[in-house]
């Protein structure tokens, strides 16, 4: 092997190696390890030692090297202290080195072979061992500090720490006799009744782990000596390894409280919660040598608490969402923990005003009311308590004190130990309901008394159930004495007089049509008693109640026996009818005679007789009109007016009436002004009667020669006719009564005017039967306009 080959081999060596020549110690060769050890670079090769490492001036090495060169004696030294400039800084290190004198076979010096090993670390650890007494003391102090911190961080650890401290004291005594601090420390850890592990170096080698921490980790003692991340591979992706690394780097302890860790225990990955401390153990130099881990598992406590929190959360949500008032009162102090919107409405307070406050502090008026005692009793007994329709006086905080009617219940909420820790109060404000019910009862009572006083019978038909209720009076009206169920079809309809059945059914159907009647029911009918076969007249009034779809739901009303009244009316009507008939019979023969004579006078060319007979006929006709009026009134009163409806042209009818008026009365100018060419569906004869009546009325109350103007026009579904005169007009007081039966305007002008006051009444009745309207517009002395309107169809 030549020298070049040798140099190559040496350069590959991990051992720091250099070759020097001459007395000046020229650096002929230095491998990477040596250059690294010097803290220099390759530029030093070829330079004298003093030049390459000037910091060696004043140190023994140059002299030693010179001596080796000159004497040829190899020099060996161990744990030699050298100071070398590395990165511009003078650093002290310890070396074991050899300056080997390499000679030619001739015995002359060839070179010096320098090998060196940095033993600084070893030296320092030796120093550490020397300082072990001091370190023990430091450790003890640090452990005491750890204990202190642990006791403050976790109460549960306090007790164990006490024990730990005691054992420390015992151990300290024991320690005196122990030469090795590590052994002492390991023993301490193993005997401590708390989970402890010691992790060495940055690699986190498990140096020590006691049985408690092994249990927590779910591992056996075989993991001791392994790096943590290999012993507990599940920690990958969890924060602990990083935290430990940070503690190692920073030298600052880390405290974890209720931190979740996922650990494989008995082969199962479990979540567990811990309070723990990572405390760095430092060397004298201040560097972290290892980390002590002290941990307490709090999984059970956390789970228990989470469970409680979860159920509390659920309860709170339930309370907030409740449609009735709810609040949670915590402790016997009755602190309002939560109150929902409805509760706040009842209280007339905001969340901020009540939350966290004592109930009786906000509502001092409750003191003296039974509620505080009831609440305390729930705390005493653990039994729920509730009452319905209880009155409570509450100060609304804005000056109003109200009395509420409340349904409430107090339900105890238990803590983990089964003690009542709070009360869930559920409060339903039923004040409105109670008050309206009282009001209703009052109204019902009053109604019942009124019905009784008026001798009214009542009926109540439930259309949803199809039931019909009749009270006793109502039953009497249908000749029913039993109290059995009655029905619309069998008892009501069959109890009606056959002639009235159709009409009453029609009226009821109309009442069931909200748009047509708004549910109003008003009818008179005859009944034939089921048991006594007696004919009775009944006036029935009622109201139909509809649902939101305008469907009839309920039909309630009263019935009144009007038989006596009707019989009176019938006698009166029969009397009027008889009188009218008796009057008409002579009128009929009179008219026939007059007309026969008229024909004879015409034949005989007797002008005077003809004229006289014409006037006689006029008087007969006038008389007939009056009598006809009486007959019509009689018919109206007995409810037997009948509309004979047909489609006809209203314009033509008005024209006929105007022509007839012009022929029979030459005293006034009757003018048909605005014509309408509307066909209407109505009783032609009766509408004609109305027109005749209004025209003849106008002639009676206006001066001779004045105008009577008739107008007609259509307005949507209605057609309106007006008859305007230039007469004495109508006083305001008379306007409303004008259409009443037998009403006559009382004034000096009208005394001389003939009539019985039935004309306008008849007109009004006829228009009413047509579902129309009749009215007058007038001022005294300014004429009058009579109007009526009827539906086109």
């Amino acid at each position, binding site marked *: 092997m030549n020298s070049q080959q040798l140099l190559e081999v040496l350069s590959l060596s991990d051992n720091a190696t250099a070759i020097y020549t001459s007395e000046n110690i020229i650096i002929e060769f230095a491998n990477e390890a040596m250059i690294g050890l010097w803290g220099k670079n390759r530029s030093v090769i070829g330079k004298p030692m003093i030049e390459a490492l000037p910091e060696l001036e004043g140190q023994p090495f140059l002299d030693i090297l010179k001596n080796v060169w000159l004497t040829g004696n190899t020099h060996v030294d161990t744990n030699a202290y050298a100071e070398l400039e590395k990165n511009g800084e003078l650093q002290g290190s310890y070396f074991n080195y050899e300056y080997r004198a390499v000679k030619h076979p001739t015995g002359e010096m060839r070179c010096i072979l320098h090998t060196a090993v940095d033993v600084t670390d070893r030296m320092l650890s030796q120093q550490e061992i020397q300082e072990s007494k001091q370190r023990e003391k430091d450790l003890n102090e640090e452990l005491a500090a750890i204990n202190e911190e642990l006791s403050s961080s976790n109460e549960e650890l306090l007790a164990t720490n006490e024990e730990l401290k005691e054992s420390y004291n015992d151990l300290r005594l024991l320690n005196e006799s122990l030469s090795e601090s590590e052994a002492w420390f390991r023993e301490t850890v193993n005997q401590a009744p708390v989970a402890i592990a010691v992790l060495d170096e940055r690699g986190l080698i498990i140096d020590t782990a006691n049985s408690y921490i092994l249990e927590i980790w779910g591992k056996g003692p075989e993991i001791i000596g392994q790096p943590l991340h290999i012993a507990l591979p599940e920690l990958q992706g969890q924060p602990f390894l990083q935290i430990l690394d940070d503690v190692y780097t920073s030298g600052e302890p880390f405290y974890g409280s209720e931190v979740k860790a996922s650990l494989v225990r008995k082969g199962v990955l479990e979540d567990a919660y811990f309070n723990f401390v990572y405390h760095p153990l430092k060397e004298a130099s201040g560097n972290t040598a290892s980390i002590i881990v002290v941990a307490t598992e709090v999984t059970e406590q956390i789970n228990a608490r989470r469970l409680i929190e979860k159920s509390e959360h659920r309860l709170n949500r339930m309370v907030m969402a409740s449609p009735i008032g709810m609040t949670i009162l915590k402790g016997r102090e009755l602190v309002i923990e939560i109150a929902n919107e409805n509760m706040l409405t009842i209280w007339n307070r905001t969340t901020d005003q009540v939350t966290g406050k004592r109930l009786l502090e906000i509502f001092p008026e409750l003191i003296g009311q039974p509620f505080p005692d009831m609440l305390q009793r729930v705390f005493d007994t653990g039994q729920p308590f509730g009452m319905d329709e209880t009155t409570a006086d509450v100060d609304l905080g804005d000056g109003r004190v109200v009395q509420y009617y409340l349904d409430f219940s107090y339900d105890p909420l238990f803590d983990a130990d089964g003690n009542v820790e709070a009360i869930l109060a559920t409060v339903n404000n039923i004040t409105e309901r109670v008050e309206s019910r009282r009001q209703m009862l009052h109204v019902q009572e009053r109604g019942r008394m009124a019905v009784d006083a008026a001798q009214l019978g009542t009926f109540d038909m439930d259309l949803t159930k199809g039931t019909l209720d009749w009270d006793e009076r109502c039953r009497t009206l249908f000749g029913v004495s039993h109290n059995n169920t009655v029905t619309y079809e069998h008892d009501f309809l069959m109890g009606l007089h056959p002639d009235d059945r159709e009409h009453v059914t029609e009226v009821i159907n109309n009442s069931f049509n909200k748009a047509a009647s708004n549910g109003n029911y008003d009818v008179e009918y005859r009944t034939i008693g089921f048991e006594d076969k007696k004919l009775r007249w009944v006036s029935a009034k009622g109201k139909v109640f509809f649902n939101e779809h305008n469907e009839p739901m309920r039909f309630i009303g009263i019935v009144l026996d009007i038989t006596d009244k009707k019989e009176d009316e019938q006698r009166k009507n*029969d009397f009027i*009818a*008889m009188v*009218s*008939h008796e009057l*008409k*019979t*002579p*009128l*009929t*023969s*009179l*008219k*026939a*005679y007059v*007309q*026969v004579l008229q*024909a004879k006078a015409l034949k005989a060319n007797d002008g005077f007789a003809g004229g006289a007979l014409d006037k006689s006929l006029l008087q*007969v006709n006038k008389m*007939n009109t009056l009598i*006809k009026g009486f*007959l*019509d009134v009689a*018919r109206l009163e007995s409810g*037997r007016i*009948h509309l*004979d409806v047909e489609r006809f042209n209203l314009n033509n009818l008005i024209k006929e009436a105007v022509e007839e008026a012009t022929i029979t009365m030459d005293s006034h100018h009757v003018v048909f002004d605005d014509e309408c060419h509307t066909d209407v569906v109505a009783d032609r004869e009766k509408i004609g009667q109305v027109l005749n009546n209004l025209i003849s009325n106008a002639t009676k109350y206006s001066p001779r020669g004045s105008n009577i103007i008739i107008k007609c026009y259509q307005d949507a579904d209605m057609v309106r006719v007006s008859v305007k005169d230039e007469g004495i007009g109508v006083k305001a007081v008379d306007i409303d009564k004008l259409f009443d039966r037998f009403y006559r305007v009382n004034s000096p002008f009208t005394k001389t005017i003939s009539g019985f006051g039935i004309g306008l009444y008849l007109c009004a009745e006829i228009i009413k039967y047509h579902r129309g309207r009749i009215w007058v517009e007038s001022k005294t002395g300014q004429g009058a306009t009579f109007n009526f309107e009827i539906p086109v169809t």
Partner: protein
Amino acid sequence: MAKKVFVIEDDRDIRETIVYVLEEEGYEVLASESSKLLRSVDSEKPDIILLDNWLTDWKSDANGQQLSKELKSNPATSHISVIIISAVSNVKEIAEAGLADGYLMKPFDVSELVNMVKKFTA
């Protein structure tokens, strides 16, 4: 041959006037104050019957109407025209309900009477 008219009317003056007017017009008239006259319908075979609605019992509206209905419902007499005469204003309805062919409301015009009879005996 003259047409034959039955007149049933309880008021003598009216009855006599009707008879006078119709005889003047050339009709053969048989008149009575009561419905007994109708017993001779089969033998006399009148062409037309004038029937007062309100006969002896003033409370009943239905006398003339009732008789008219019987006549018009009987196949043997249904071909005979029946005119109801009444003072009531709803004579039209009464006549219709009694299946009568026409009606006259009292007091009627003589010309009305003549036209009515002419119409149903033409």
